[in-house]
């Protein structure tokens, strides 16, 4: 079918249905009379209630409103007006916005009659579960916040819109619809069929409607018909696109940080999504966007798995970002600035954030890790920590003596002990033996590994020893160079990770569950989901969890291939761990990291149509080929793009969160408190 190759809407079965009916009367517009004239002679062609924006992650701050398309002559305009806050006697038919919201915020987000000549593209997100939404990107590169269609209907919206403006599906992303995209010669030729109508729109571009802010807060009228009340004052402007940008900029300049963050996040999302390959030309003027994103955001490059095409000069236009650039590791001098005279870390949030973006210099790890792991409290003083260390040292020695004093005769009758000791003995000699700290025969450090693990199996007899623990302990001992301190840091780490090692693998499974949800959450794994023939989703990660390789199948069956620090070099492992331990942004950043790495290799995985076995092999062979810093940036960006949807995918209690009810089950924090 020819149209299928034209990359237009008709290639989509969904839209074909809607388009096929000559005069579609989508349900969403049944309440309006298409002949009904707006004031000023504008014709209402589409109306949708309960279209909502989410300025922040908090449900209470969502703003619902009404979305309309109006037509004036050949021009089509997009309008979204929030409902007026109605603290009492509200029309309960509509999802009432939080009355506490400032009107300022409300009007901030209002979209007043934006002509489609100023719209560059529309991205649709139509997850199977959850709300559908669209993101409207202006020619200036600015974007409006996602408009969530609480009652569905994105399809109808686009189908209706297509009747009035030229809408072309992006060649790069089937979920992006380009509006009037005639700068790209290829697109132009492909859309030649649409040309006459689109040109007429383009010709009318100079008469942009800039309606006055008319206090049009509610468009509801008694008869349910929507009548725009705006005064619709028209102005001739020389550069409508620029004008709109400035308006938007002004709006955003009014608001608080959260809106700013939201904006930059949106811009980043748009950027990363749509600015690839042939779709990348002349879009975002860099200086303009710098006004909006934080400066440090502006250097990093968009890096997907696809090395972006031809023109190297385009790179400088990519000013809107994927995660912040990584910083240099935290050094001793800077570390000292975080400590007060008595050794307390006052700004632990700032410290964790600093470490998140740069890691820690190796010499400093011995100190910093104890805080990150929770062995030391941030508010502890030098003296308190010294005391804690001496008490804990004694405690360790006591526990160590317990198993050391088991006689051969006892051991003979103590199967569990023999088994554990046997497993540990086997594993320590195959743990990081290529690292010089652990290599060679009769290496004392290997013996210390063994002693700590055996002692741990007495400290936490229920959990015992599980393969993989030696891999987790090895970098800790390497950093601490001290048996007792390593033990207690390992204890603290296992507090977070313990559920992963339980026999029922519940910890693993909740992570996999989260991952499988995250991958279907299109704000996280944008673009098309994996086609259904791809039964298996590899998730690769090396983290402070037992994670490394996780495979979730689409039919709900999950398979975990827990692996430990096998994918990264030793130094990178330590960096990744300290970054994850900061719990800055999310304590589940490793899950975003999994998805980020998956995304990075998406093209290969999809392109080669890997079956499960091939996929597994591919993942196993990623060892040593993960660019950690890039992956971390991707993960950070994913976190911001996903917003609350991402976090909502993660079940409560998923490691490294402590299990909700029984935090004291494995380790009693009170012990430490009593000592202090």
């Amino acid at each position, binding site marked *: 079918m020819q149209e299928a190759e034209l990359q237009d809407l008709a290639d989509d079965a969904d839209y074909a249905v809607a388009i096929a009916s000559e005069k579609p009367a989508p349900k969403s517009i049944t309440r309006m009379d298409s002949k009904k004239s707006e004031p000023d002679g504008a014709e209402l062609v589409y109306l949708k209630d309960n279209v909502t924006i989410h300025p922040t992650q908090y449900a209470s701050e969502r703003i619902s409103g009404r979305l309309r398309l109006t037509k004036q002559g050949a021009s089509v305009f997009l309008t979204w007006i929030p409902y007026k806050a109605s603290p009492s006697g509200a029309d309960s038919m509509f999802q009432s916005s939080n009355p506490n919201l400032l009107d300022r915020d409300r009007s901030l987000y209002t979209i007043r009659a934006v002509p489609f000549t100023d719209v560059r593209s529309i991205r649709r997100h139509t997850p199977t579960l959850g709300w559908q939404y669209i993101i409207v990107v202006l020619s200036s590169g600015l974007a409006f916040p996602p408009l969530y269609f609480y009652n569905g209907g994105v399809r109808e919206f686009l189908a209706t819109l297509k009747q009035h403006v030229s809408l072309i599906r992006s060649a790069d992303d089937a979920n992006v619809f380009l509006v009037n995209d005639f700068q790209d010669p290829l697109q132009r030729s492909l859309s030649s069929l649409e040309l006459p109508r689109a040109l007429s729109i383009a010709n009318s571009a100079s008469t942009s409607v800039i309606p006055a802010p008319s206090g049009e807060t509610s468009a509801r009228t008694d008869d349910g018909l929507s009548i725009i009340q705006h005064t619709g004052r028209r102005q001739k402007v020389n550069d409508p696109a620029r004008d709109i940008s400035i308006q938007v900029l002004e709006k955003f300049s009014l608001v608080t940080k959260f809106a700013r963050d939201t904006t930059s996040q949106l811009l980043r999302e748009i950027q990363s999504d749509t600015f690839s390959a042939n779709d990348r030309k002349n879009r975002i003027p860099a200086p303009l966007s710098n006004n909006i994103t934080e400066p440090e955001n502006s250097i990093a490059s968009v890096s997907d798995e696809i090395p972006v095409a031809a023109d190297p000069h385009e790179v400088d236009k990519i000013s809107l970002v994927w995660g912040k650039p990584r910083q240099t590791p935290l050094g001793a001098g800077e570390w000292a600035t975080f400590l007060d005279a008595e050794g307390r870390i006052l700004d632990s949030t700032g410290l964790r954030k600093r470490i998140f973006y740069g890691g820690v210099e190796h010499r400093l790890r011995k100190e910093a890790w104890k805080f990150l792991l929770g062995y030391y409290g941030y508010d502890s003083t030098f003296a308190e920590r010294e005391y804690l260390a001496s008490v804990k040292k004694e405690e360790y020695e006591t526990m160590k003596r317990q198993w050391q004093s088991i006689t051969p005769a006892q051991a003979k009758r103590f199967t569990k002990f023999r088994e554990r000791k046997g497993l540990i003995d086997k594993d320590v000699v195959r743990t990081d033996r290529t690292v010089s700290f652990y290599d060679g025969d009769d290496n004392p450090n290997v013996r210390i590994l063994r002693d700590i693990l055996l002692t741990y199996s007495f400290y936490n007899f229920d959990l015992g020893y599980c*393969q993989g623990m030696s891999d987790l302990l090895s970098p800790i001992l390497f950093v601490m160079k001290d048996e007792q301190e390593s033990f207690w840091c390992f204890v603290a780490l296992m507090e977070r990770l313990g559920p992963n090692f339980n026999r029922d693998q519940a910890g693993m499974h909740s992570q996999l569950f989260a991952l499988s949800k995250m991958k279907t959450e299109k704000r996280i794994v944008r673009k098309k989901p994996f086609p259904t023939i791809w039964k298996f989703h590899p998730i690769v990660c090396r983290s402070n969890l037992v994670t490394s390789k996780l495979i979730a199948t689409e039919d709900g069956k999950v398979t975990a291939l827990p692996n430990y620090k096998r994918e990264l070099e030793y130094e990178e492992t330590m960096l990744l761990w300290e970054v994850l331990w900061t719990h800055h942004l999310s304590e589940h950043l490793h899950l975003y990291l999994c998805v980020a790495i998956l995304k990075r290799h998406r093209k290969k995985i999809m392109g080669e149509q*890997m079956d499960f076995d091939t996929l597994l092999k591919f993942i196993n062979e990623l060892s040593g080929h993960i660019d950690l810093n890039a992956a971390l940036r991707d993960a950070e960006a994913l976190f911001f793009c996903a917003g609350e949807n991402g976090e909502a995918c993660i079940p409560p209690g998923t490691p490294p969160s402590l299990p909700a009810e029984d935090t004291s089950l494995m380790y009693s924090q009170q012990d430490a408190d009593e000592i202090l």
Partner: protein
Amino acid sequence: MPARRRALLKVIILGDSGVGKTSLMNQYVNKKFSNQYKATIGADFLTKEVQFEDRLFTLQIWDTAGQERFQSLGVAFYRGADCCVLVYDVNVAKSFENLNNWREEFLIQASPSDPDNFPFVVLGNKVDVDGGNSRVVSEKKARAWCASKGNIPYFETSAKEGLNVEEAFQVIAKNALKSEEEEEIYLPDTIDVTGGSQQRSSGCEC
């Protein structure tokens, strides 16, 4: 004669932690031994081309984690196996005693259509250790157990020295092939790792 897709023979290696599963696989496929393998967590596989008479096969050898705790993760890989290799360490009695558990667990999880005749091969590994002086499971005892389970072929191997490894895998492959021919159960749509040059020589290549 239609171009025939190369058959894939899937082999699973099971046994207690540290008996030498990974080493055996690597010795067979790569002719290499390292004493620095890491404990296997999850699963991995290696492939090797094998020839029988005039046919080429891809032997896909799956290495699994030995610790019991990971079994809930490993069983997903059992399905579709054409042969199961049970490995124990002749110097560790427990690893021999556990063979029965491994065998039964495999039959439950993989649920082959004809469990009584499903091909197993048993390998008693690490016969080189200490010149055989630390050995605790006798060959006789091992062979008796194999006989009692339907005459399972038995080999005494040393992955470290490459002793009997090739011979054992020859039998493993042959039995896997037999099983595959009889059952015709598992011919997945695999990627042709050789790039298809052999099979498509008659067609036009663009």
